[in-house]
């Protein structure tokens, strides 16, 4: 039951941010930026529940660091729309934050995707799932890259950050494949729960990339819900992982 409530809270957060955008944009901005702190804190706490030799410790730590950088970036420099006509130095700082956020996200997801390596088994169709999401990543990423280059002057600092974001998104969407395969392989077991939320998060990030291929009037409403949901689902994944580990510890012999 608590896992359902956790999922519902993520969707509700997205809906509240979308509604705030209509009635109180300043509050919506604050709620969106604050959301980045949630997976950062939850991810670090979850990482510390693993030992130093455990792969998932580093996956959670790197993934959480990405959101921590994202939060700091939003506090220091703001969102893309706020920096489109800012001074070059601001654009460089914005691009650096975006690069680090995407690099940590990709590295974290790559570590999650490698959870089966060295175990002696893996879902047999994992590679096909990865290939499928790579094709999808290209189908979304190429129009996004064209869109970004159309709006921004090429080689401007902000365009470099935007391109880093597009490339990061392509790799991240590709890495949804192994995460999806893991979630399906573990279905019916308690360990599937954090993977479900992680999948929901990366799926929302994928949907967040769709506006470039969607009609503009649809994209405006949709972005307000999808991005906060993606961020809060990442926090929910870390919380679910922590809950699952605590429940296991309570039920297992010392």
């Amino acid at each position: 039951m608590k896992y359902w409530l956790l999922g519902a809270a993520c969707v509700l957060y997205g809906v509240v941010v979308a509604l705030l955008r209509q009635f109180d944009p300043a509050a919506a901005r604050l709620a969106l930026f604050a959301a980045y702190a949630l997976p950062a804190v939850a991810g670090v706490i979850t990482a510390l529940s693993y030992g130093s030799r455990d792969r998932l410790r580093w996956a959670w730590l790197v993934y959480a660091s990405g959101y921590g950088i994202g939060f700091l970036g939003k506090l220091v420099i703001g969102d893309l729309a706020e920096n489109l006509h800012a001074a070059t130095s601001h654009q460089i700082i914005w691009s650096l934050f975006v690069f680090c956020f995407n690099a940590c996200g990709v590295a974290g997801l790559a570590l999650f995707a490698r959870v089966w390596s060295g175990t002696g088994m893996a879902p047999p169709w994992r590679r096909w799932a990865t290939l499928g999401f790579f094709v999808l990543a290209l189908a979304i990423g190429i129009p996004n890259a064209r869109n970004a280059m159309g709006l921004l002057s090429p080689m401007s600092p902000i365009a470099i950050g935007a391109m880093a974001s597009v490339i990061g998104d392509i790799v991240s969407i590709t890495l949804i494949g192994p995460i999806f395969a893991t979630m399906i392989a573990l279905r019916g077991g308690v360990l599937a729960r954090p993977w479900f939320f992680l999948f929901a998060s990366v799926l929302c990030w994928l949907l967040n990339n769709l506006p470039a291929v969607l009609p503009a009037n649809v994209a405006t409403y949709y972005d307000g819900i999808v991005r906060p949901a993606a961020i809060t689902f990442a926090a929910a994944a870390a919380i679910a992982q922590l809950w699952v580990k605590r429940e296991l510890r309570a039920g297992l012999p010392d």
Partner: protein
Amino acid sequence: MGEPALERLQKCLAVYVGPHTARLSLKTFAQKHFGMLPNQLPPSALPDLVRSLRPLLRSMLGEADSEKLSRLLLMECEQ
């Protein structure tokens, strides 16, 4: 007569990794380490089968919790 040890083991493992991965992992490691299907294994081979699951459990749960789960699975084999 009680439930066979292999079924108890599979059910216990399924609580954590799900029925599909529980069945597949026991089959994979039984074939890899003993060259036979899990239901062809003698009961005395089950603890070794559980030990072969350790890398999988360690990757999913971390070292400390996977050791606890391994102990629980070994207890299921011995009952």
